[in-house]
């Protein structure tokens, strides 16, 4: 009966050792010493077999209880120590969150012109236009004569044309196209109505000052189809402008004008106002001239072998840089062509916003 007190002492000693262990390693040592193959508790359990059967059962129950309680204490202690050690370890792994990450060298930016051109063509393509193209170098025939602008026409002098030294088959100097309208001629000569095209592209004028660059871009539109009237032209352009400027209420005004290649001809203005020298689109307090258009002149159709008695339609053309300046609030045209990366980053579009036409 001498085992009774020693079991209590044993339990106390082990418990105290578990509780006082200061690291997982120390605790692990204790575990092996207690529960391991050579452990003290294991030894006690092993010695059960040496007891007489009547004592064995009672002793066995006592020892089992003891093992359960010691295991519980051990596990609690182990979890506590593990958590404390994790805390200590993580505390040592602190980084200085105020430090900057490496500079991101993958952020490119799209020129605002490209974004504007993309948006405009997307809007028009969604309205039913196909895209057509023509060369930058043109014959005078395509750039002027076929468009009803003969050599002596006053409008021809307004074009500030760049001439090349080289000539066409007729001995006329080739020109850098002054507008995208020659694409109308190329299309009308080769396609059969109905024709619905836009021709985005680069155009040239021998003019350079604060508001002019020697080359710029236009989008030409041409829609030849039975029953097309000026009302379609107005509706088409109003829709395009409202979508582009993302202003469903934009006031669009059509005003008589003159182009040799359209009759009737019109200019489109959009309503705007000025606030502290700042232009704000909307309303109809003031007007901003934005593009030229009209019903294709019968001479143009005739020049391209299209019978004006059977076919009619509209054409329009506008400057893309100007649209971009208005939409994105860019004050200076010349900066478009300066190749300043900081400027592009400022006014341009990163990967997350580029090519966002028709996004709501």
């Amino acid at each position, binding site marked *: 009966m001498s085992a009774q007190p020693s079991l209590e002492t044993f339990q106390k000693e082990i418990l105290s050792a578990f509780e006082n262990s200061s690291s997982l390693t120390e605790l692990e040592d204790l575990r092996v010493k207690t529960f391991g193959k050579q452990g003290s508790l294991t030894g006690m359990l092993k010695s059960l077999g040496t007891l007489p059967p009547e004592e064995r059962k009672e002793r066995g129950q006592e020892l089992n209880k003891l093992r359960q309680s010691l295991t519980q204490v051990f596990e609690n202690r182990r979890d506590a120590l593990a958590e404390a050690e994790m805390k200590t370890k993580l505390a040592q792994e602190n980084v200085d969150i105020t430090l900057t990450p490496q500079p991101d060298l993958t952020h490119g930016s799209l020129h605002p012109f490209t974004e504007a051109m993309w948006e405009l063509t997307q809007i028009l393509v969604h309205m*039913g236009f196909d895209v057509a*193209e023509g060369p930058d170098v043109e014959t005078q025939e395509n750039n002027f004569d076929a468009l009803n602008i003969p050599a*002596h026409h006053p409008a021809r002098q307004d074009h500030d044309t760049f001439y090349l030294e080289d000539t066409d088959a007729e001995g006329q100097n080739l020109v850098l196209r002054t507008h995208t309208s020659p694409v109308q001629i190329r299309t009308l000569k080769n396609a059969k109505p109905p024709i619905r095209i836009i021709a985005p592209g680069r155009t040239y004028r021998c003019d350079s000052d604060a508001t002019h660059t020697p080359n710029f871009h236009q989008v030409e539109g041409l829609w030849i189809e039975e029953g097309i009237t000026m*009302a379609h032209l107005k509706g088409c352009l109003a829709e395009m402008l409202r979508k582009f400027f993302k202003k469903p209420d934009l006031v669009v005004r059509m005003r008589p004008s003159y182009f040799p290649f359209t009759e009737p001809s019109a200019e489109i203005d959009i309503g705007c106002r000025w606030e502290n020298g700042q232009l704000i689109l909307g309303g109809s307090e003031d007007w901003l001239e934005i593009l030229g258009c009209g019903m294709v002149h019968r001479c143009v159709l005739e020049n391209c072998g299209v019978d004006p008695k059977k076919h009619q339609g509209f054409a329009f053309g506008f400057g893309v840089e100007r649209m971009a300046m208005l939409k994105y609030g860019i004050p200076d045209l010349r900066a478009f062509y300066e190749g300043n990366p900081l400027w592009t980053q400022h006014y341009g579009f990163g990967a997350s916003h580029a090519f966002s036409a028709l996004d709501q």
Partner: protein
Amino acid sequence: MKITSQWLKDYLDTSATPEEMAEVLTRQGLCVEDMENPATLLAPFKTVKVTKAEPHPDADRLKVCTVDTGEGITQVVCGGTNARTGIVAVLAKPGMTIPANQLTMKVAKIRGVESHGMLCSSGELGLGETDDGSIIELPANTPLGISVAEVFGIDDTTLDIEITPNRGDCLGAYGFARELAAGGLGALKTYTAKAVPAKIDESFPLSFDFPEDKKHACPLFTGRIIRGVKNGPSPQWLQNRLKAVGVRPISVLVDITNYLAYDLGRPMHAFDLSKLQGGLTLSLSKGGENFEALDGEIYKLPADAVIIRDEKKLQSLAGIMGGLHSAVEENTTDIFLESALFDPILIANAGRASGINSDSRYRFERGVDPELVIPALEKATAMILELCGGTAGPVTTLGRTPKPAERFAFNPELLKTLGGVETLSQRDVEVILDKLGFDPKAIEDQITIAPPSWRHDIDGPADIVEEILRVKGYDLIPEAELPPILENDHQNAPNILAPRRRQLSVRRALLGRGYAEAMGFSFMSDHDQVFFGEGVPVKNPISEDLNQLRTSLLPHLLKSAARAQAKGTAYGKLYEVGNVFHGSKPGEQSLCIAGILWGETPRHWQNSSPLPYADFFQSKADVLSLLSACGMKPEKVSLSREVPAWLHPGQGARYSLGPKNILGYSGVVHPQTADHYDIKGPVSIFELYLDQVPYPKNTTNAAFDLSPYPSIERDFAFVVDEAVESGKVLQAALKVDPKLSITGDIFDIYTGDKLESGKKSVAICLTFSNPEKTFEEAEIQTLLKKVQDAVEKTTGGVLRA
């Protein structure tokens, strides 16, 4: 084109304000761009009387004037030569701004004497030019305290109107009046000339000398002699009107002919009769003649310009500018006054070739009203007799007024079918056409019209639609939806769509690679030729810097990078997508993408030395990424060292498909090129010819097919001659078994002590994957042997011990 509202009222009975006029004109296609009334500016400048002018105690040229403003007495120090007691002058009070120099008046002490403003000269108020140092001196009976604008009768609004080239009829007040009347702003005062009776029976001999096929050069030439005139400055009202429309008054005779240009839109010319000999003959120039014009310049004439000669010499470039020799002068007493009609095309051609711009040319080019030739001559005669005295001879007429344009039928239905407007009645149409002078006659549902003599731009029913709609206002046109389109109605040509998509793809690729987009002009200079070849020359370049079409996008990028660098942008990436020109014919252009990357990555706490940024391999990575954006497998591209002069010969590559199809170049900029463009530090560039990269035929993806069996990874190191291109080692290894998927890369290049000299070690890591089964050990050994053999065969490399 400028005109004033009062001038318009000479021909328009209206109570409309200038603002209302502007609104109607703009609505009708005559866009009013600006409006200005000088009276607004001059309103505060009022008449005063100098009651006493005494010498300044301290300055000889100054006077101390006591001035009666009508409201009180004030003191002004004045330097005007004519400042004296008793005159009526104009006072600028403290706080007022002088129009000519924008100086604001203040109370000041001038040499110790207080001055409360200034007595103005006409120059200071923009009323005329004086250089004699005198101040404005008004008649003694001028009331005090009234505005100088009122005294000079300049309370008149100038409208600046944009005139489209078809509206030659609106280059005079009369034309605008007709427009406003049609637009409902009052009634037109139809101009009918009163013939001035001849008081002397003297005509100047006139003759035509045109070849048979050029008779149209001058259909009608009229004129008359006026003797005994007195030239001199024009009366104030005439000067005011001319100045208001931007014409400098010269002398009354000249001013009257200029006045008619802006009044009836009729250019005219007055010759000094005493300088003419014999008579006037109209003919065409042969080309090369020297002509001394009245602006003092000598012009070389082109062929087929209409010229006017007397017996001795060339006296006028008809319809464009008179000659200096017979120009009217201050002391001219006898004149021959001309009013004529010239062919617009001949005038335009001669004007363009000679480079002379004049109000006369501007009007003749756009077409003047043939019916006004004689009425204008009569009006000018009457004005001359009234303002200069003298007696007029009879009107001599050569040629005749051309036949009016023929009537044609107009179907009002066109307003709907072309104009899209359904709301106009036939009555509306007739009223508008009548007011515009088209003399409409209704025959059942058709209307026939006669284009008026002043409208040369009307040649068909579409023009009539515009006439009616513009007077009614284009606001009448509704916004209609475009008709729906059937899917197979599209004519999208694949040769246009594919390149457009490609432009999008390559831009997207570079957006993710840190590039900012640039956009250059299509021009370059001789300076760029050095490295980029000769461009197509432009005949009339805007500047020497831009005198030829670009052959490459790189010059602009190099200049942009140099500029950015100079401004302190230490590192960056720029690209452009655009056309370059390889010939001067239409279509000899091709689409390129080019980029430049310069500088080093900034220092950073995580890496003390810069990361790779502007070296060859970055440019190679960009090119491969772009090729893959074009749908091309980079392994199909062959690289060579045959690079243009602008690339570093050892750090540049040519990318091609086979030996012929060159896709582009990339690499480090040649130091001489860098120097040429003033760029410092590491710079790499690339240029890809997007049209040369084939378009992928099949865009659908192969099925995703990842082997379910584990792959194996093995490292190898091969010792090869230093001259062997390392890529060949890898390429040989990757191709050993086409049935397997093999990927890998070079992870180390070593030369040094541990190797024989002239040798290098190329270490590669390969991953083998078999879609069909798990690798067995024996297979692996065979595979490794295969790699070893393949590399040895192609490069002579041996497995490093």
